[in-house]
């Protein structure tokens, strides 16, 4: 036995076992929930405030130019939505309804906002999930396949990624449509029926995301591969491919996870344009319609949806960090 161990005690190795960890966890969860609620409330308020600044009264805007509606009809509509009341009253009434889970009714479509969003969520989730899966797959292939080796392949992959990142999704969509739907007729041009119709929109949405992910992933991989622990691992006889998969990939995952917030934003945002180009129904198309028509309840509903998605995803991301990186688990 080494003599050193009998010398004197090491400094405290681990923090004292967390005292009363359950209440602390609860407190953290409560704080998290409260924060989430604050973000949601803030988002609703921002949207409400923003739309109050829109010039022109909502009813005129709603009816559009060239309407035959008489002033009486306009007044009736105004009354129905409480638009004749003072703004603060409208705001608090709205919040009151929100608390009871009532998102209100779309001014323009005259249907409950919750129903509208519910109807449109499916196609967008489908599109987003397909795009995300595809993007992650492409990025993994590109990054793992080229990180730190084969300079020519790496350069080629980098160029492709840069191109993907630099190309607007609507532009990619148009090119794909032209090539595969109009010229080659491989894929249907429109709609959301079936898998075939999902391919082009998903690819369109996925390419820029894949480009970004691949860049970040490779950078992460290369950074990790330069770390001493990789040298240590290799000195144990671990092969270079195994080092990437067993050691480096997990490290590279951290910056990728950080990107997730950006990712959801870019998928949701991309959906607006991609759904427009491909004539697909969905949240993106609904968003475009709602904002351009100043359909306040619908806009707030969509804003709340986005904020909710964001909040949920941030929570998941934080959880994921803990899973990936044990260093973050203490404290």
């Amino acid at each position, binding site marked *: 036995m080494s003599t050193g161990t009998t010398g004197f005690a090491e400094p405290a190795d681990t923090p004292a076992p967390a005292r009363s960890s359950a209440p602390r966890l609860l407190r953290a969860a409560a704080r998290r929930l409260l*924060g989430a609620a*604050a*973000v949601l409330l*803030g*988002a609703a308020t*921002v*949207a409400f405030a*923003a*739309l109050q*600044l*829109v*010039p022109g009264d909502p009813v005129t805007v709603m009816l559009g130019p060239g309407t035959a509606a008489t002033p009486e009809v306009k007044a009736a509509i105004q009354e129905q939505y409480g638009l004749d009341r003072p703004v603060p009253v409208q705001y608090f009434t709205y919040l009151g309804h929100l608390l009871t889970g009532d998102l209100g009714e779309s001014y323009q479509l005259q249907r409950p906002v919750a129903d509208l969003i519910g109807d449109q969520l499916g196609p967008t989730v489908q599109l987003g999930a397909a795009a995300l899966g595809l993007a992650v797959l492409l990025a993994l292939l590109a990054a793992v396949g080229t990180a730190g080796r084969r300079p020519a392949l790496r350069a080629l992959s980098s*160029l492709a990624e*840069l*191109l993907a*990142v*630099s*190309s*607007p999704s*609507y*532009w990619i969509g*148009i*090119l794909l*449509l*032209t090539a595969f739907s*109009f010229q080659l007729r491989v894929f249907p041009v429109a709609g959301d029926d079936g898998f075939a119709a999902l391919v082009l929109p998903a690819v369109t949405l996925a390419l820029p995301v894949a480009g970004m992910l691949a860049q970040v992933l490779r950078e992460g991989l290369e950074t990790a591969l330069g770390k*001493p622990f990789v*040298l240590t691992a290799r000195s144990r006889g671990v092969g270079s491919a195994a080092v990437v998969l067993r050691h480096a990939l997990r490290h590279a995952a951290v910056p990728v996870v950080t990107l997730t*917030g950006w990712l*959801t*934003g*870019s998928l*949701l*945002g*991309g959906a*607006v*344009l991609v759904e*427009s*180009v491909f004539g697909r129904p969905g949240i993106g198309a609904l*968003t*475009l319609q709602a*904002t*351009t028509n*100043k359909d306040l309840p619908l*806009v707030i509903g*969509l*804003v709340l949806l*986005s*904020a909710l998605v*964001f*909040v949920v995803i941030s929570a998941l991301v934080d959880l994921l960090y803990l899973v990936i990186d044990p260093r973050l688990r203490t404290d």
Partner: protein
Amino acid sequence: MAHTTVEPVPGPDAAPDAVLLKAPEVPAPAAPARRRPPLALLLALAALALLLVAALAPGLLSSASPIETHPAEALTPPGAAHWFGTDQLGRDLFARVLHGARPSLLLGLGATAFAITGGTLLGLAAALGGRWADQILMRLADVLLSLPPILLALLAVTVLGTGSLNVMLAIAIAFVPGYARIVRAETLVVRRSGYVEAAVGLGLPRPLLIVRHVLPNAVGPMLVLATVGFGTALIAAAGLSFLGLGPQPPSPEWGAMLSQGRRFLATAWWVGVFPGAAITATALVVNVLGRRAQARFTRRTDA
């Protein structure tokens, strides 16, 4: 500068202060300065030069008018007379793409400039303005960050109305929270950095300290990020323009041109393809240069 009451960061002694880790002594690769600049960089610089000429003096590159219509030559395919073909009104697309550089770049540039200014002010205010300012501003940033930029931009356009300036502002609004975050985080780092402490140790007055050390070092990283951000802003602005929220006609703007060209996908591909290619090429150039700047910056500060 509240250095005497630094926030309860873990005690400095907690860090291993015994020895700085030494880099493995693998010799540095041949000095980068001596290496031939990569082809990509040269190409990007050449393209940038071309873009700048197009933006500043498009007339030098094409004598055709981007606005004058020649109905007789409508939808001519690309050829010797019209390199990029003509559009529906017989306007020379090459000239239009060239003249489109200025409004398109201005959109991206303006949006980025607004976003940087706003982000810097808010980030600094949050980092240096005390706990309350920080709380309020960062909660607001949280809220804005929770919304996809395009939704924010759409909302902003709804409020502000369409048109170049408003599109710039709308995109800036969408990007401000992100930049503010970066500036705030950098400011907090810089505030605790060794060189600010060194300056405090020299008895530098607070305003001088902020102007001379905190501001430039906190904003520097964001400026570098902003080069890449410029590409994003350019694409986003063209996107809004594509949705018909951009500058007024007949000003040739790439996003609007692309949107118009959409109609002719099946019949006259060139009307939509070239403006789109211009957007992609510009964003590509900006990305290549931005990334390079970023790499250089990191090298400079991290040694």
